[in-house]
């Protein structure tokens, strides 16, 4: 067997890693196991179909430190959210460089039926809950960065919403960065929704300047019977950042999940979203909009939806606007198991190339083993519609304005899925 491809700085870091605090045995054993797997597997190579277009040489060039700012005392200089991102009505959780800093709830009521704390605290105070929802059987071959994350994570968010609980305001997760250079963070988040509970999350990844860092997050989400989740991620990492995110979702009977992903930042971004519809009548909708504006900017979405039970519905709608010499990859995999009768699934991926050097790769994968299913998919890649442009201009709309209208028009069906008006407007403005 050939030696694993692994930059030496990362190999050294992983091999020598030890947590600065104690943790339960089941967790440390799991961590050790994942560490061994990662060291043995190394980074994925382009021979691996899931990583065919991803150029991970950016990781070789870097030499990053892990750090545990871990802010034991959040009262000491917690970072203030950027004014433009503060939401008046929302409950807010702030993270800095991947570490949980503080949580603010608009009313005490909101706090009663939920647990919202750092992962580090959760492992101490809510160990049984954490263990119960751990999702230990992650496919390490498919998600190598999830293994790395598990080997190295020191913090993250633990969010538990009790049965029959509805959060009236969205929960705003603010991932801020410090002005430190050359760090990496491996936060692990666990979000658990009880039966018939309801939650809306807005996750904002933001950075002020062109700092170089690597964010490698792992988010595990579990939805009990009839739970409803809206999860809107807005990725505005620094232009020098590497953003790798793995999100694993388990849905029980008649639960509903809406995932929205808006990506603008980072130089290398890989986003894996895997949803398992484990019981009947589960519904998930995933959609994304990505705008790449820099040379060499790269985004790679892998969405896997696995229907394991009957009467499930799923949707993928991803759209990309590419400028300059940027590249985008979309891979949408739909797996319908034999038991998943009467499944309805829809998949679409559309790219708008605004420059002759931009590239888009789109690959639908449909594996259907059940009868009586309705599955549709479609993909397009094109330029701004010259006919539409002429039509708008012929009414006196200046060319630049007409192009703006068409871009907005292209993005519109994804944007309209954002329920929170302020957030939708903020994203819309970013599009221009």
């Amino acid at each position, binding site marked *: 067997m050939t030696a694993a491809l692994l930059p030496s700085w990362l190999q050294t870091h992983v091999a020598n890693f030890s947590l600065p605090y104690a943790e339960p045995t089941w967790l440390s054993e799991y961590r050790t196991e994942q560490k061994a797997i990662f060291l043995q597997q190394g980074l994925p190579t382009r021979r691996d179909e899931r990583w065919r277009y991803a150029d991970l040489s950016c990781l070789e060039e870097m030499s990053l430190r892990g750090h545990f700012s871990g802010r034991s005392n959040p009262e000491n200089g917690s970072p203030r959210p950027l004014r433009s991102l503060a939401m008046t009505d929302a409950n807010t959780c702030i993270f800095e460089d991947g570490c949980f800093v503080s949580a603010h709830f608009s009313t005490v009521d909101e706090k009663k039926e939920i647990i919202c704390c750092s992962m580090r605290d959760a492992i101490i105070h809510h160990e049984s809950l954490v263990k119960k929802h751990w999702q230990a059987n992650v496919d390490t071959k498919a998600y190598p960065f999830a293994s790395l994350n598990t080997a190295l994570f020191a913090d993250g968010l633990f969010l538990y919403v009790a049965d029959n609980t509805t959060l009236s305001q969205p929960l705003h997760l603010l991932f801020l960065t410090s002005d430190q250079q050359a760090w990496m963070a491996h936060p692990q988040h666990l979000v658990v929704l009880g039966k018939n509970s309801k939650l809306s999350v807005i996750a904002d990844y933001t950075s002020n300047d062109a700092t170089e860092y690597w964010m490698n997050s792992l988010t595990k989400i579990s939805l009990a019977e009839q739970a409803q989740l809206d999860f809107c991620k807005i990725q505005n990492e620094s232009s020098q950042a590497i953003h790798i995110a793995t999100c694993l979702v388990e849905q029980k009977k008649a639960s509903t999940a809406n995932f929205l992903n808006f990506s603008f930042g980072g130089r290398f971004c890989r986003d894996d979203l895997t949803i398992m519809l484990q019981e009947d009548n589960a519904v998930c909708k995933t959609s994304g909009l990505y705008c790449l504006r820099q040379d060499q900017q790269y985004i790679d979405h892998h969405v896997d939806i696995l229907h394991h039970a009957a009467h499930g519905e799923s949707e993928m709608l991803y759209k990309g606007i590419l400028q300059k010499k940027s590249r985008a990859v979309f891979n949408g995999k739909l797996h319908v198991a034999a038991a998943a009768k009467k499944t309805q699934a829809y998949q679409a991926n559309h790219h708008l190339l605004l420059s002759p050097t931009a590239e888009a790769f789109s690959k639908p994968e449909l594996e259907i083993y059940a009868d009586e299913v309705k599955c549709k998919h479609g993909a397009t890649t094109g330029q701004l*519609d010259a006919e539409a442009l002429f*039509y708008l201009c012929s*009414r006196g*709309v200046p060319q630049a304005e007409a192009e703006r*209208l068409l871009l907005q028009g292209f993005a519109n069906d994804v944007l309209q899925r954002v329920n929170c008006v302020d957030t939708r407007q903020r994203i819309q403005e970013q599009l221009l």
Partner: protein
Amino acid sequence: MLEINNLHVTVSDEKQQAKAILRGLNLQIQSGEVHAIMGPNGSGKSTLANILAGRADYTVTAGSVAFQQEDLLALVPEDRAMRGLFLAFQYPTEIPGVNNMYFLRTALNSLRKKKGLSPLDAADFLMLVKAKLKEVGLDEGFLHRAVNEGFSGGEKKRNEVLQMLVLEPQLIILDETDSGLDIDALQMVARAVNSLRHSGRSVLIVTHYQRLLNYIEPDKIHVMAQGRILKSGDKSLALELEAKGYGWIESEAKA
């Protein structure tokens, strides 16, 4: 208002060969006049309308077009519109995701800006457009839909007329606006155009049929074939064409 001299236009075909569409076309429209151009399929009528609006698919190889004493061909489409030229398209484009009302307000406000007028806000615009909607027989729901998306043929034409009424252009070009319309819609188009008839405004109607001209009386009728105007006359020419077809004009021109 409009003066076209010896206009030659080519379009490149599938084999990238230049194909002549207009071959020395002359036309003058004075302020306040309504002209109609009729002619067989492939005579170049729609090309003329699109060339005037500034569509990029054509190459002008000779000739000139002056619009209000200005060189029209040197202007980009939006500048032509800002100077008051309006083409009601034969096949209006569907534009998914772009809100019909927002588009029309953006268009009106850019024309208003050019005239030094303040922009209309959403409320004022809605007031203005509601009255015009009634005139063209569309309900308010159409404002909130994407531009022409999923509209029937007739609804698209009504939407074109709505834009014309809101933008109040100086030169209106109707490119087969009457084709595919039922009699009620045809009368609506005529009413709208007649309501805009004015000494400072001109209209050029491109049509196959004499029917629309029963409702909008033209000052002049031109017959076009093989890329030029072969015969011009008053409104009685339309009736003659309806009775005798185009053949006699083409043979008359050859003789």
